[in-house]
């Protein structure tokens, strides 16, 4: 339980707020490289502010405050030129530093343009996404986490949710929800509707642990029938402060990204790099596959027949901003408490004019490896991967068939001959929707 003032402070991300000031010390993905190759300007809303992001003819990126400082029209409807982004209204042009370079209707000798500067952030591409920094200079290094830079077959499911980003992050340090939301509840749905819920998610938690680390909070669990020697405890996986979670297993290397759009909206992305053990080469991709996945049905009810849909139900039904003055935490919620404590500590450092000490680096680097278990919940690698693909938002990916094929090739490469296409289809056929599809096919014949 929190006091109302504290809840408001922890959830407000706009400029000038303590949390907003902290969050402005980090880089965020705001677009896919593909999008700006298709159209070079995109409107971006981030941390309660609007920006115009554009791709420069030289291949670089720029980001400035959306509204032109002249007459306040949107630069999103501008013209991309060699020198920068030109306002479509009166032709003022701004370079990637925000400096105004030209005002066609003004006389050159006045020097007016020299005196006009709009706010500019920094932007660069990594892993098929465009990342921006809109905080105080100098910007820290863009952290090159393993998922984004390692070789793999990549796909990104995403959706915009009408809730505050913090309630999604608190879910990342709440291991017990897995055995209930994705375990018991999923099993209940399966029993009612005639499909198999993944058994690996139904195991009881015997122990959970949390360790502070330079990138956030390392989360560990011991499940029933397992021990501290298993990856789930010995390795664990981290909440990557302040807005991501690194997760995976069986060769699925994933970053779950929660970009705070404003106080009540979050862009959530599941960035997966498929790297099944046994394979070293992966299908060529110009861009990672990106797709929006559904989380509400046509009647406005939550889609809860897949893992992330269940998570989203829990996040969104807490309200646009969870009223934590009405919550009742227990001992099992120590991860949530630890995260709030970390946020308060880091907010204070920023208020004192210092850098945050968690989740940030100013050291140039090529790659940052994060701990993440491979053996997940003690389930066979291929079975786990196939259940993740078909019971997660990956079921909506246009690349699903390719990903499935990849895991079967990897199983064969490891000498596991049990996993044929037929065996995979048989397993996946037990999951949601098969009967419905087959019934439709039957009735169509």
């Amino acid at each position, binding site marked *: 339980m*929190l006091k109302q003032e504290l809840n408001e402070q922890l959830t407000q991300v706009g400029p000038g707020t303590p949390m907003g000031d902290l969050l402005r010390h980090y880089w965020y993905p705001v677009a896919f490289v593909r999008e700006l190759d298709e159209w070079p300007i995109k409107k971006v809303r981030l941390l309660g502010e609007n920006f115009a992001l554009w791709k420069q003819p030289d291949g670089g990126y720029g980001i400035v405050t959306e509204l032109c400082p002249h007459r306040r029209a949107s630069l999103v409807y501008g013209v991309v030129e060699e020198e920068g982004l030109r306002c479509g209204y009166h032709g003022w042009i701004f370079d990637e530093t925000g400096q105004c370079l030209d005002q066609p209707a003004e006389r050159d000798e006045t020097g007016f343009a020299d005196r006009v500067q709009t706010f500019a952030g920094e932007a660069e591409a990594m892993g098929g996404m465009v990342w921006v920094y809109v905080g105080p200079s100098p910007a820290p290094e863009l952290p090159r986490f393993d998922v984004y830079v390692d070789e793999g077959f990549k796909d990104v499911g995403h959706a915009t949710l009408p809730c505050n980003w913090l309630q999604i992050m608190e879910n990342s340090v709440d291991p017990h929800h897995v055995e209930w939301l994705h375990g018991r509840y999923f099993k209940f749905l399966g029993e009612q509707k005639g499909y198999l819920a993944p058994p690996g998610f139904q195991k009881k938690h015997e122990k959970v642990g949390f360790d502070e680390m330079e990138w956030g909070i390392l989360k560990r669990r011991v499940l029933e029938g397992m021990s501290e020697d298993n990856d789930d405890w010995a390795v664990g996986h981290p909440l990557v402060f302040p807005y991501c979670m690194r997760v995976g297993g069986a060769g699925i290397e994933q970053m779950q990204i929660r970009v705070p759009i404003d106080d009540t909206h979050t862009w959530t992305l599941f960035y997966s790099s498929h790297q099944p053990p046994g394979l070293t080469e992966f299908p060529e991709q110009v861009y990672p596959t990106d797709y929006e996945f559904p989380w509400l*049905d046509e009647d406005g009810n939550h889609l809860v027949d897949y893992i992330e849909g269940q998570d989203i139900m829990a996040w969104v039904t807490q309200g646009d901003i969870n009223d934590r003055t*009405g919550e009742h935490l227990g001992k099992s919620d120590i991860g949530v408490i630890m995260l709030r*404590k970390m946020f308060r*500590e880091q907010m204070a450092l920023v208020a004192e004019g210092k850098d945050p000490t968690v989740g940030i680096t100013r050291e140039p680097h090529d790659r940052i490896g994060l701990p993440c278990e491979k053996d997940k919940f003690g389930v066979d690698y291929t079975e786990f991967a196939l259940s993740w693909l*078909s019971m997660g938002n990956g079921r909506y990916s246009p690349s699903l*068939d390719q990903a499935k094929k990849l895991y079967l090739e990897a199983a064969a490469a490891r000498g596991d001959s049990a996993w044929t296409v037929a065996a995979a289809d048989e397993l996946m056929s037990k999951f949601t*929707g098969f009967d419905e599809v087959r019934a439709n096919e039957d009735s169509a014949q």
Partner: protein
Amino acid sequence: MTAAVDRNVVPVPTGLRVRREPRWTNHMEPVTPVTGRRLSGNHWWDPDRLAHEVDMPKFCPSCAEPLDAEGSIAVEYWEGEHRVFHVRCHACDWSGEVKRVERMVGHEPPHE
């Protein structure tokens, strides 16, 4: 007339057969603007909320600095019948737990 399908001779699909494309909207009504809005939920006279205000430690048990200062925090959780406040003080970096005890009850020692 449609012939009955013999499932034994239906070729095993090589592509994914479980994927479906439900009709979906991802549409939710716009939220009320946050500015000027107080959070709602439990009533202010909710006994747990009142107890939280009363019991929450106001000062660091170690250095006595106010716990509502920047960087400090007191988060309440429940352990059995007890309200426990996990506290972190930014002034002295003390971190620990404060628990209000209303009645001293010990365990009965083991006996025959």
